[in-house]
């Protein structure tokens, strides 16, 4: 898994609406990359639903959220609608899992990303990382707030 202090690997992926999104588009802003295994698995649903509820508080800290999984944009669109969320979802679809691999979040045996959070700072550097012990374990939103507090106090 990538570590804090390293440059965040650049990527360009399509989102749920087919729009191309690059990491560098977010330069000057903080971005939280939410790697998750798959759309429509109950655990992911809860994770993104909960994050949606605290999105205003996270935004108040100057942080935007994007979800990344190996699903296609069409699946992301349906997943977004099912959950009633507006968090942008990026399709790490082809080559499959390439971005998750670049961040060290890909699980080869299962063919999807582990549940991992990567906070990228305004300069494109990794500021904080959380990797779940297993894809079944969901990182609570408290970890994000704790990280923002810690990162903020280091600044």
């Amino acid at each position, binding site marked *: 898994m990538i570590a804090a202090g390293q440059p965040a690997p650049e990527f360009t992926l399509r989102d749920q609406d087919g729009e191309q999104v690059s990491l560098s588009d977010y330069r000057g802003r903080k971005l939280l990359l939410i790697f998750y295994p798959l759309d429509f698995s109950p655990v992911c*649903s*809860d*994770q993104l*639903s*909960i994050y*949606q*509820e*605290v999105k205003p508080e996270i935004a108040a800290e100057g942080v935007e959220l994007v979800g990344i999984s190996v699903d296609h944009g069409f699946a992301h669109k349906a997943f977004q609608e099912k*959950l*009633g*969320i507006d968090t942008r979802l990026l399709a790490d679809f082809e080559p499959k899992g390439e971005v998750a691999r670049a961040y060290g979040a890909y699980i080869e045996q299962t063919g999807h990303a582990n549940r991992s959070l990567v906070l990228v700072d305004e300069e494109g550097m990794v500021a904080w990382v959380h990797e779940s012990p297993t894809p079944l374990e*969901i*990182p*609570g*939103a*408290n*970890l994000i*707030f704790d990280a923002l507090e810690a990162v903020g106090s280091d600044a």
Partner: protein
Amino acid sequence: MRGEGEALIVYADLGCPHCAAAWAEICERPAAVVFRHFPVASKHPRAPALHAAAEAAGKQGRFFGMVDSLYAERGRADDPHLWERAERFGLDLERFEADRRSDEVRARVRRDFESGIRAGVIGTPALYSPS
């Protein structure tokens, strides 16, 4: 709080089917059940209104009555169903209406939700025994 014994803090969503299924069993535990609001609005759009209704009923002493009823009859979650419950419980309907739309009640529900976030709640129902 409902029941006696060690405290059992329950973060629950009144729009959540898993919570509804677990609620009766939770209340049978030999513990003092402390209900904490955890409405996940993106998933259950009606949840904020239901939590506000429970809190407003609580102001007239019928918090758990409202929670029990909302879980027992999940299909009856529209405003007329809430008014019908308020009447059945003998609540002052005008006060119930004002309370459930008040900033105070909204803030109370949000405070519980945020405490759940801080505690790491990521799904409902989430149960914690402080001891």
